[in-house]
């Protein structure tokens, strides 16, 4: 466990914890963005450069901006005060502990823990491109079709009818 890993892990955890804890929704989104940056840096630290860049491109350039827009167009920018109710906290902690326990148990039992891994293969963007265009071309195309359908649906929902006043 290197110092770099510890710093990045700390950044990610701090960002996500702040995203849950802060009162102002916009602050929450910005803190979550910090968590996304930390995650992207962790990917790069593990040698998955492509995944890291795509994480930044999609989650910061897309998701964070979208979340910010959604909050601003649906709510006033004033800070909201949410009383933290006790049952909510208890339930949340229980669910989180349960998920963590299951994941930890699965990882521990999988045999990946403690095994000496061979030197990690360097995956270039070119290899990912070949895999997507040759082996997985059908899933890729289906995904594209699904997104196009979603896009057209969004336009149909948002478009003004003819004659309707704007």
């Amino acid at each position, binding site marked *: 466990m290197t110092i770099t890993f510890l710093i990045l892990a700390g950044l990610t955890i701090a960002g996500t914890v702040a995203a849950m804890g802060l009162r*102002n929704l*916009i*602050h929450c989104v*910005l803190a979550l*963005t910090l968590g996304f940056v930390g995650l992207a840096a962790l990917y790069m630290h593990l040698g998955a*450069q*492509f995944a890291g*860049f*795509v994480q*930044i*491109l999609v989650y*910061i*350039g*897309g998701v*964070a*901006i979208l979340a*910010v*827009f959604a909050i*601003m167009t649906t709510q006033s*920018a004033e800070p909201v005060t949410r009383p933290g109710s006790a049952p909510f906290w208890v339930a949340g902690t229980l669910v989180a502990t349960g998920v963590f326990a299951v994941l930890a148990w699965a990882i521990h039992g999988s045999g990946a823990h403690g095994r000496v891994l061979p030197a990690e293969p*360097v995956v*270039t*963007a*070119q290899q990912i491109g070949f895999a997507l265009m040759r082996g997985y071309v059908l899933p890729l195309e289906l995904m594209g079709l699904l997104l196009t359908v979603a896009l057209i649906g969004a336009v149909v929902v948002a478009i003004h009818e003819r004659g309707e006043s704007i």
Partner: protein
Amino acid sequence: MSHVQMLDQIFVIVKHWLLAYVPAGWQPLASAVMSVVPVLILFPLLFAITTVLERKGLARLQNRYGPNRVGPFGILQPIADGVKSLTKEDIVPRSADQMVHLLAPLLLVTAAFLGYAVIPIGRGMVITDMNGGVLFFFAISSLVELAVFMAGWSSRSKYSLFGAMRAIAQMISYEVPLVLAAVVVIMAAGTLSTVSIVNAQASYSGIFPHWFVFTPWGFTGFALFMVAATAESNRSPFDLPEGESEIIAGYYIEYSGFKFALFFLGEYLGMMATSAMAITLFLGGWAAPFSFLTWVPSYFWFFAKLLALICGFIWIRGTLPRLRMDQLMNFSWKFILPMTVINIIAAGVWRFMPMGPWRWLVCSLMIAGPFIVLGRATSWQGKGVAVRKYRYAE
């Protein structure tokens, strides 16, 4: 090593010479610092030159003198500007979100600087040669949008919020064609690494270079890329986010003193980074324009091309009026975006056709035909030329 090569590699040689004095354990860190610090000094310096160049150039276009009081011909104006913005009072609105208000300009400048990590400014002169360099560049530029939003929202002013909204809508719309225009080069070079892309263009047939701009798809891609880059850096004619007559100065209206200067710096650094990426992708990076000019150091060519593109930006700013919001969006989604997709198809056809004049003819027609059809369809809206109706201003 001949003198010509020596001059070309002088900075690399000096760096290795200095690095030999550093203890072995510290060498990676020292190497990184020695690569980053020159970029951190050089490009703000270029920004200073650009500001005076822009003010002088715009003044010429508008029949004025421009700044001519500080130093000979006003070339020391940036120093005066810098001192002025450093000594000005830093005013933060009382209702502003103090923390976010402070972080926004810092994030903007950081994001603008990060893009330079993958720009090769000379032969063997790049901070990191990443495997996915082009992707890194576009990923980082999406951080700018977040910084713009933070600035606009934290100021708690309706003008800055409107400015931020406009800026983000515009940046998202033009980021798509910007990336798609770059795709043709990635297809042709077969790599995402900026260094490999430049190397793929650094050969000559006869005296002429193999730059990607000298192909039908490359020329179209370059033109589309530059239009999208102008919009992406919020420059005229796409400067709605800071439209003075409507929303005063957009998202940085509530900033003063040095924070305002940081916004200015970030904006120009972003413009220069995108221009540098255009040079890397289409204009051969540091490669000389003719084979008999290869004795001139590679970094000279890079900065010459960069200054030429900046002058182009200034010229356009002095020439074209500002677009309306609907024109901006129509232009992006109905013209630029389809053209980039057609350009990608043309690049694919070019790749698989045998070399010769037929390849030129087919690809040129594939681009020119849709260009004319799309241009007519979008500019006349299918109604022919008519007196413009104003929906909201009767």
